[in-house]
């Protein structure tokens, strides 16, 4: 096979050029199908990003009992560290709790006047979970400490459950739509390549008569398919990268209060996944499409 590699590349190149209208049509077909997939992927991945950001902002706050000594508090902190589904624990001391309250009541200094030394704001731990789906489990564990180490637990149970459901639904829709669109893309590409193969079945037939092996016949077509698939995916990948980047720039310019990466998924994060998977998809679409289309012509 390697003896013939230049022949295959030359043949594929010549055929792509000679059938340039068909080549262009195939590339456009792959491009448009891939573009739809990319747009959907960017949308789904942004929705997911926004939801997971929101999820992360919902955590749990546990208030430490007034009676708990510093030593006991440290022991309790160790117990919290043992819970694997907790990703972050921030300790808020009494002093910090007062400062936070002061921030909230800024401008109404009278409210907190005289309470500096003896204020009612308890020590607390602000807990972030590895995923909101563990909220219920962690809540149950912490509930056991209530009345002893803990005075109370603040947990946005219903909001978290709603988020989990929304996220699940979006993921399901994403899978169904991406799967469906991929299938449609494969069918369209197979159809286009079948047309290209059909227009050259005479050539395949002659190749078989003069003693060409199946792989010899197949390789130029596979290379053509790979070329069409990769170019067809590179074009929408580059254009969607530029457009997405431009849109984000515009949003951040017009709405300066939105911090970069805080709401929309950064362009580099999206394309870190999209670029290799898009190229792989193009490669596979091309190779599967051409291999399937040519198969029936090889039995001469």
């Amino acid at each position: 096979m390697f003896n013939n590699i230049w022949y295959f590349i030359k043949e594929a190149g010549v055929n792509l050029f000679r059938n340039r209208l068909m080549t262009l049509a195939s590339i456009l077909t792959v491009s448009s199908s891939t573009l739809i997939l990319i747009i959907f992927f960017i949308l789904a991945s942004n929705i997911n990003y926004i939801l997971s950001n929101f999820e992360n902002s919902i955590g749990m706050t546990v208030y430490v009992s007034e009676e708990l000594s510093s030593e006991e508090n440290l022991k309790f902190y160790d117990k919290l560290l043992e819970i694997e589904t907790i990703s972050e624990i921030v300790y808020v001391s009494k002093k910090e709790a007062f400062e936070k309250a002061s921030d909230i009541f800024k401008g109404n200094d009278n409210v907190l006047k005289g309470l500096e030394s003896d204020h009612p704001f308890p020590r607390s731990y602000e807990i972030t979970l590895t995923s909101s789906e563990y909220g219920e489990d962690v809540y149950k564990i912490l509930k056991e400490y209530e009345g002893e180490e803990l005075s109370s637990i603040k947990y946005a149970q219903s909001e978290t459950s709603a988020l989990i459901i929304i996220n699940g639904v979006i993921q399901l829709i994403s899978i169904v739509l991406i799967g469906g669109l991929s299938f449609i893309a494969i069918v369209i590409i197979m159809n286009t390549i079948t047309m290209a193969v059909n227009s050259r079945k005479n050539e395949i037939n002659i190749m078989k008569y003069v003693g060409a092996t199946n792989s010899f016949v197949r390789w130029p077509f596979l290379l053509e398919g790979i070329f069409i698939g990769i170019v067809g995916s590179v074009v929408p990948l580059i254009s969607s990268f530029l457009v997405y980047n431009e849109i984000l720039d515009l949003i951040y310019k017009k709405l300066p209060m939105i911090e970069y990466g805080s709401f929309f998924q950064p362009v580099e994060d999206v394309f870190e996944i999209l670029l290799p998977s898009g190229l792989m998809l193009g490669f596979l679409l091309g190779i599967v499409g051409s291999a399937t289309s040519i198969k029936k012509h090889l039995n001469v």
Partner: protein
Amino acid sequence: MIEVINLNKVYKNGAVALEGINFKVEDGEFVFIVGSSGSGKSTLLKAMLKEVNVTKGIIIINGKDINKLKKGKIPYFRREIGIVFQDFRLLPNKTVAENVAFAMEVVGAKKSEIRKRVPQVLAMVGLQNKRKAYPNQLSGGEQQRVALARAIINKPQYLLADEPTGNLDPNNAMGIMSLLEDINGTGTTVIVASHAKEIVDVMDKRVIALENGRIVKDSKGGYNYNV
């Protein structure tokens, strides 16, 4: 040597294409297979090329029982056989030289070898000045010469021609026959399926006549097997 023993071919729709075919072709022979349309000539050639599978019987070519040939070995077997069709089957996008070189590229021949051999073969069929022309710029006779050049470029031991003069005027047809005779003169076994009575009569070679899938004559002489 080619040996065909009790060959039968029945198509899926029940049509009997060949029935009890027996013959031997010695190396270096020139044989015509004649008969009217539907007599089984093309099916016989297709069976010899392993393009169709026979229902019963044996075909031995160069010591190989081709019915037992595995799928992957068919291309290598076909490289021992040159084939020419009535409709030439040239690649329209390739020049004369490229069409001929194509058969060598397919079998993985070296470029230097291809560069040396193509002009030789084109000279042999009298097309050395047309090597850059495309098939649609050639006459029917010239196109068949290109097909012949392609068929013999790999120096096959056998040459099968299915109605090679079917699309040609008598002059061109005789030209092609004389080329086939030259090729036969180099030691290649030539088998020609034809229903061109005048040509078969003039050539005066061995004739195997088929009628309704059966051999009705196998002898030297002209086409007219009913006499």
